């Protein structure tokens, strides 16, 4: 079916079946490959994008459910102050190893910091528990979120 999606501030027309997960529309039809496939069951968070500013798992979100709602992918996260702060912190702390899960980690971290600008370790744990990293970058993810929060606090 023909669908209109609002992705990264632009309206795009795509042809897809209603039950197709958003992830495959982004990756296969639109060439937005920043969101990754990890499990297909909403278990690992590699595919996290924002819909209406909220983190959602694109691998289990039917594309028909997000028609006309604003979708942000990692490719456009630098358009946002919090997004830039998180990207900068990720680089400064040297979070990525293989980097494959990091788009999803960053999208979850940005959503957390928008809602909770100064998260505690416990709040970070709660917000990031859905994002698996096999390389084991968790300690640096914690550190980078704190660093981004501090940067956002100090540079209003």
């Amino acid at each position, binding site marked *: 079916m023909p669908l209109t999606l609002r992705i990264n501030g632009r309206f795009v027309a795509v042809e897809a079946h209603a039950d197709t997960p958003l992830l*495959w529309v982004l990756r296969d039809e639109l060439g937005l490959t920043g969101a990754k496939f990890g499990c297909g069951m909403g278990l*690992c968070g590699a595919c996290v994008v924002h819909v209406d500013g909220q983190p959602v798992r694109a691998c289990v979100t039917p594309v028909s459910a997000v028609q006309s709602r604003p979708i942000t992918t990692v490719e456009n996260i630098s358009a946002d102050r919090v997004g830039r702060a998180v990207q900068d912190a990720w680089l400064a702390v*040297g979070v990525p190893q293989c980097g*494959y899960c990091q788009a999803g980690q960053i999208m979850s971290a940005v959503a957390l910091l928008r809602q909770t600008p100064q998260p505690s370790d416990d709040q970070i744990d709660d917000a990031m528990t859905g994002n698996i990293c096999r390389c084991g970058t968790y300690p640096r993810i914690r550190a980078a979120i704190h660093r981004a929060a501090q940067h956002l606090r100090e540079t209003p």
Partner: protein
Amino acid sequence: MSARHDAGQGSSGLTRRAVLQGVAAVGGLVLCLHESGRIAHAGVAPPKYGVDAEPGGAVENPLIFVAIHPDDSVTITVARPEMGQGIRTSLALVVADELDAEWERVRVVQAPGDQARYGNQDTDGSRSMRHFFQPMRRVGAAARMMLESAAAAHWGVPVSEVQAERQRVSRRGGEPSLTYGELAEAAIRESVPAPDRVKLKHPGQFRYIGKLSTRAIDGADIVSGRARYGIDTRLDGMLYAVVARPAVLGGKLVHYDARAALAVPGVVRVVEIASHPQPPRSYPLGGVAVLAHNTWAAIKGREALTIQWHDGPNAKFDSQQFQAVLEQAVRHPATVVRDDGDALTALRGAGTRLEAEYYLPFLAHASMEPPAATARIVDGHCEVWAPVQDPQGVRDLITGLLGMKESDVTVNVTLLGGAFGRKSLGDFAGEAAVLSKAMGGTPVKVMWTREDDIRHDYYQAVAMERLEARLGADGLPVAWLHRSASPTEDATFVAGAEGEDDGEYGMGMINVPFQIPNIRLEIPKVPAYTRIGWFRSVYNIAHGFAIQSFIDELAHAAGRDPRDYLLALLGPSRRVDPRTLSDQWNYGESPMRYPLDTGRWRAVIERATREAGWGRTLPKGRGLGLAATYSFMSYAAAVVEAEVDSAGRITVPRVDIAFDCGPQVNPDRVRAQLEGACIMGLTLAKYGSITFKGGRVQQSNFDDYALLRLPEAPREIHVHVLESSFDVPLGGVGEPGLPPIAPALANAIFAATGRRIRRLPLGEKLA
């Protein structure tokens, strides 16, 4: 007697050679193994070690690896695949340092699989920096010398009158300088200096090597979603393929009905992939592929297939029952691989006698990027894009599968979204090539789902380890018996291979340098019923867990502090020739250049325990556990602090790891690898278990094959890397942090609760 150490191969050398030669010329496998053994036996060639023993060796021609452009940008080609270890940054910074390039102007190009051109590219065994630090230094330095020669010629002065620094060559005496960009064209015509004439920097002059602040080459691309992994390849007109493979290794397709699959909108074709005779090697497993216009249609199409399989003999495999087979195996005499003194008699004497059996299940790698690869064939040339650790091996595989010439196959290496050994074998890239051929050359991307990945891995081998010891009057062992029963990875390449080979028991079992007069080590022959592969640190995991747990048990039995006991077992600081420990393999490295140094082993133990506050008083339910292992020429000691609550739930608030890998090229990445090893070690200790029933893997996704999540990660991981001079040969980094973690956790749980963990995984909580 296997050919492995005769050939002077690195980790998995025997089987890797089998990949290279067995695929290109089926039937040549046995011959080539015999040949490599025979050559060494006959003494025709002196033994080769390190990179010289690896296929392709090292190539040091700067014209292959360095390009300097008129705009003064520098392109450095990295031939080793990037899987998260940071090698694209680390090898490039070595070249850039000796070249005296500005890091901000450096770009990295990834080499395709071509070992004749680039030297060895098979990225495993924690070898990249160990083997290529010096060659890549010489590459950078040779390029710098060519630029200097070009400048000297330009000015008509002796080369001693010019000096390169920060991408400019200047004349002594303050004359105007020339940029590398201005000199590049002339420099290419200069002769390449011979390796022994290349002048290297003094380590005090390094700008990037050993420094903390080098920008990661791929960092900005990763955080912006621009980085390209195997699953990200997109070609015009590309079809997406998902494959139904036999659930049981060796299973055959009997019949399939594709009508319903073909009715799924977007599905284009259904294609059978041929299976191959066992052993599995790196061949595609065979099965039925659904090709579609997008991944989702291919997935839905596969669900709609009706397939009848013939499972074959492996259908009887049950990993629960196999545990009993392994138990019996370690309770009976087996092939002796080291025999110091008379352990069997010494075990029978008076005094405290301990025995223990440790069990570690199969593991799946579960890299976050599942296997995926894209292939197309244009005018008889097959081009592949794939996240593979061994691109030349994949090239050889595809050359054989398609019946093409090597020169007609190009394997481009994408970023690897994790690998940990899984992507050493390119069965999935073979699938893509075979499917593209079936589709008349149309580009085809093969996508593995997570279920495919978990069920069709090359697994870390299950292991049963039995240890026996008798303690003398001083509490230290007078006799030590260790039997290790684990299927060999060789079985993936040689039908019927049974029991660990010398490179496998060479990983932390045979080379114990303990102060014990009677040591007997035995290897029972046990078969493999599934594809066994290499998993980060490989057999060191089981050996390290068993040995370091058992030493803790001995210490407690002797009423001694586990740290003091471990240090006493290691004895005084000394350099031990591994051959005196019956270890002929030594990770493929020279026993003279890389002796086992008990002083370095002691030092990491002392450092980790000091930093962790060993001996401090802890609240009830908390304990500290220590383990220390030597693997891949590096020394690692971990102190884990564990807390077990009244419900048996285990948390790890803190880990201290001390590490000695010799000199560090990229210190931040060394730390990152150790942090990651800590998380992976806790993961396998807590959750790691692949089981088989009816020959089928029972796990499928992250719900039943759990990985550690962020809340479970220790709030504190302290990495302590020992400083080392650049005179010391480099050790490995990617793998050696892993082996001590699980036993340190088990020992910590014992300290906290008095409960001894001998079987992994632990689960969420103690039962």
